[in-house]
């Protein structure tokens, strides 16, 4: 919750699977996303990305573990035992989708095509990491420079197809041009 005009406003809830946690951590935006939104992951996802072994091997796994320890990433498990998804997924991905389905008004963050297919089928709102960068920029939470650098990192370390990266950069440029135009007009 955050205080806006002395009224408690609930933060937007984002349920993340391992693909989103990993790529957002790698592009350096995990911290700010956790500040602005309520980030939730199932315990199975945390076991996939931030086990003791992985914390030693990968600095970004240690960062995720630290954010979890500080309760910036909340661990929560779904209660939908026995629910069958329309397609097979690994435990963490399945748990994250079921959790997103259970948490009202949450958004499911993933960078996996098959998980997106399941989310579409179940009509769960979803978001991929490049769109999170665009949204952070639109909400003026990061500068154009940071947004562009983050998309650049997602391009090199994230292996998004060139058309996705190009489209994300165009969205950023449009936002920047609109801002410049509005600034000139006012």
């Amino acid at each position, binding site marked *: 919750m955050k205080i806006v005009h002395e009224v408690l406003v609930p933060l937007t809830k984002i349920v993340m699977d391992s693909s989103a946690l990993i790529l957002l951590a790698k592009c350096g935006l995990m911290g700010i996303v956790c500040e602005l939104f309520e980030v939730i992951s199932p315990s199975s996802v945390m076991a996939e990305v931030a086990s003791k072994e992985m914390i030693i*091997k990968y600095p970004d796994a240690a960062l995720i573990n630290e954010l979890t320890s500080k309760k910036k990433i909340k661990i929560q498990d779904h209660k939908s035992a026995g629910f069958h998804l329309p397609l097979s997924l690994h435990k963490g991905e399945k748990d994250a989708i079921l959790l997103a389905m259970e948490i009202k008004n949450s958004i499911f963050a993933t960078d996996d095509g*098959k998980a997106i297919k399941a989310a579409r089928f179940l009509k769960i709102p979803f*978001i991929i990491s490049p769109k999170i960068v665009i949204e952070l920029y*639109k909400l003026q939470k990061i500068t154009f420079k940071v947004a562009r650098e983050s998309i650049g990192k997602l391009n090199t370390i994230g*292996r998004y197809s060139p058309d996705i990266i190009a489209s994300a950069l165009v969205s950023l440029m449009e936002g920047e041009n609109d801002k410049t135009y509005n600034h000139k007009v006012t």
Partner: protein
Amino acid sequence: MTKPTTIRLPEDLLDDIEQFIQELKLDRAAYLREIFRKGFYVDRQDRFLQQYMRGELSQMEVCKALKLDPWQFVSQLKTRGLYLNIELEDLLDSSELPGEI
């Protein structure tokens, strides 16, 4: 422990292998075992990644099948010149994040 098996190979391939074994003075059986093992793991990885690319497997399903941790997954794609199995449509259909009220 090894077990015997029989396979039929194309003559030209077998000739190339025999010639190579003689040139490098390799142990024939050990060499055949080695290339069989190497070929199998490379082929298995290729096939699982192709299934991923077609959207038939998720990242974590591939990781489990190939005994990879999820942090290694993207580098495997990079090694093979592959991309994430996300389409432009998925970016365009992604939700917007609500700002402050």
